[in-house]
């Protein structure tokens, strides 16, 4: 064994997995996990913990894995995280815990994500559930949204003894974990549903089909249903479009629609009645994780898929692992390319996309080099389906119906980063509803901070 390198993780062969929706990464077995765990040098001042938005005691759980006590390792993780099987799969470890690992200075960092995933999967397979709270506080808290922020906040509050109800707008809990991230990255029944069961086992109630701001408002929850504090984790729901001609043609979709049809509504399953467009040649516009998810979904549904992104590979916002997997599977990257018009036939169906080539200029306010148009470089790309993956903005349903809840110019709810406190008393917020589109783990971190904030507020009330 090369101590400078990670124990490699088994994956489905790219050619095989490009045709199915089974999980790409197969994870460690116990032998592999214990071997990888032995690479951890158990730093006294562990940097990895500082890199974790929910501050899992990483050396603590890894030392339990090293000793072969996986159940104890699970309880260590559970103290900090409600969704370890999810995080082990979708966290950008390379920029967080693993990015700070001392081993990474000379060689590869410890594979913390894969170890977390192994521990969570082992616990699930062996029926281990997180430990709940015995003492009840008798105070009701409402959590809006059952995505990563809401589940984390609800789980933490339940562990403190609060009576927590989550309100979910869709028919299934999980938020982006269910409608956004595809099966081949995050299995729904085996992983997500089980983690949600774990949160419920702490005493959290989940009411689906309730759209806050429509079915009932925040103020009505407080006044009529006796909730003493509210956490808003409603996510960043509204898809952005480019505003170019032809964008409403038949065959142009938001990544949200395309992924929701496939993931939440199961259109990937041939037995499902949910329709989804089976494009022959698909362009996915954008370079984030969602773009990679949409592209790899379209590929599995039988298309030749192109990622069209206006900057270069270096600026791709997607995780390195996702880009790597996409390339392995045969996604074609058309970088430094920007669409200017969608072309359609006389019946309104997409036939192609007019694009223009770009080059990188001086850095913009985000620090990334600004893409500039190369004059006279227009060309046509024949495609029959275009998926717009340009990011999302927060849904105004809640902010527009809650008096005293202020938003910033991007319509994001204004909340204190350290405790989730909003401009309205008793109302806390976190996740994409506050930050705009970000990651699962950052939303979990915000849910965690807000749970502490709510506990402080209710303890002093």
């Amino acid at each position, binding site marked *: 064994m090369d101590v400078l390198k990670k124990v490699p993780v088994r994956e489905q062969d790219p050619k095989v997995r490009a045709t199915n929706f089974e999980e790409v990464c197969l994870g460690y077995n116990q032998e592999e996990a214990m071997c990888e765990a032995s690479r951890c040098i158990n730093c006294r001042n562990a940097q990895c913990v500082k890199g974790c938005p929910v501050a899992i005691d990483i050396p603590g759980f890894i030392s339990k894995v090293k000793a072969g006590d996986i159940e104890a390792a699970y309880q260590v993780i559970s103290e900090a995280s409600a969704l370890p099987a999810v995080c082990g799969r979708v966290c950008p470890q390379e920029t967080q815990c693993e990015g700070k690992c001392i081993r990474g200075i000379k060689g590869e960092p410890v594979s913390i994500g894969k170890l977390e995933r192994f521990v969570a999967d082992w616990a699930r397979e062996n029926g281990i559930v997180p430990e709940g709270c015995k003492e009840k506080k008798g105070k009701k808290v409402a959590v809006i949204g059952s995505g990563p922020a809401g589940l984390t906040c609800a789980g933490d509050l339940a562990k403190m003894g609060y009576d927590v109800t989550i309100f979910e707008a869709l028919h299934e809990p999980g938020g982006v974990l269910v409608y956004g991230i595809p099966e081949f990255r995050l299995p729904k029944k085996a992983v997500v549903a089980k983690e949600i069961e774990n949160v419920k086992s702490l005493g959290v109630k989940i009411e689906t089909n309730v759209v806050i701001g429509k*079915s009932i408002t925040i103020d009505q929850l407080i006044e009529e249903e006796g909730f003493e504090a509210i956490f808003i984790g409603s996510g960043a729901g509204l898809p952005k479009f480019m505003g170019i001609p032809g964008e409403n043609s038949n065959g142009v979709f938001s990544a949200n629609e395309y992924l929701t049809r496939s993931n939440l509504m199961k259109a990937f399953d041939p037995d499902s009645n949910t*329709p989804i467009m089976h494009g022959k040649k698909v362009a996915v516009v954008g370079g984030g994780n969602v773009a990679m998810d949409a592209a790899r979904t379209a590929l599995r549904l039988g298309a030749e898929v192109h990622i069209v992104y206006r900057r270069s590979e270096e600026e791709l916002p997607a995780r390195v692992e996702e880009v790597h997997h996409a390339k392995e599977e045969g996604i074609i990257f058309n970088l430094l390319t920007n669409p200017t018009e969608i072309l359609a036939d006389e019946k309104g169906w997409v036939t192609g996309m007019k694009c223009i080539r770009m080059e990188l200029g001086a850095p913009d306010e985000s620090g990334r080099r600004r893409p500039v148009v190369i004059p006279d470089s227009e060309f046509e790309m024949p495609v029959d389906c275009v998926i717009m993956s340009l990011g999302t903005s927060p849904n105004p349903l809640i902010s527009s119906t809650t008096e005293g809840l202020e938003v910033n110019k991007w319509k994001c709810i204004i909340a204190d980063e350290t405790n989730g406190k909003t401009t309205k008393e008793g109302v806390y917020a976190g996740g994409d509803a506050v930050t705009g589109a970000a990651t699962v783990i950052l939303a979990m971190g915000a849910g965690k901070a807000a749970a502490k904030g709510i506990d402080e507020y209710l303890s002093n009330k």
Partner: protein
Amino acid sequence: MYKIVKAKELAANIYLMDVAAPRVARYCEPGQFVIVRMGEDGERIPLTICDYDREKGIVTIVFQCVGASTKMMASLQEGDSFHDVVGPLGCPSDLVKEDPESLKNKKILFVAGGVGTAPVYPQVKWLHERGVNADVIMGSKTKDLLILEKEMEAVAGNLYVTTDDGSYGRSGMVTQVIKDLVAEGHQYDVCIAIGPMIMMKFVCLLTKELNLPTVVSLNPIMVDGTGMCGACRVTVGGKVKFACVDGPEFDGHQVNFDEAMRRQTMYRTQEGRAMLRLEEGDTHHGGCGNCQ
């Protein structure tokens, strides 16, 4: 689960159901809609709320069988349940935001086409309860497809019924009735037209000529109904709007109906296949070369 407390066939292939959905019934208003799902793997089907009883916690929906899912829905009986009912979604009708006193001075004309009669009904009823009597034109292809005539009669000012084939009431399209009423000297301040997209398009073409402001209620393809997917985008006055959160009611003179109708056909082939699968069992897989 959301129990069906009443189910009846109003006309051939058009069904009415009262469903226990207390959270929806509590705050819903005319003009809003719900999304229902039959089973664990069911489609999400948007339907306009046709009536509601806040005390009993019941909402009434009316639907026409158009595809596999609605056909299955028609087989549900009193005592059965929907797996999911979510709502109320969309914005309430503009009327309910207006002062009832000023509404009394307004001459309002409703134009209801086919199953579009169902969403028109709660608005006319709402006005009637506030002492405002609106005129209503109800049109259908033929006599047997007319729905809610008695209910409408009870709440409308003047009710004009017309059938395309002349089998009942006046004869001809609803647009002809509008022309006739105007020729007879009726004057209206606002028209609210709800029905098939093609009907709304032609009503709007006519009322634009007549200089009669017209509101329409659109029912494009939707998935979540909360603004998340953008499937329901329509162009109104040159701007892209999401029918689920910005609508479903829009200024009919600003709506790009041709685009909206085109977008409704997006999944026609696949919906047809689902229908065939329901009718013929799992024998039709496409691939015959005639489907795409």
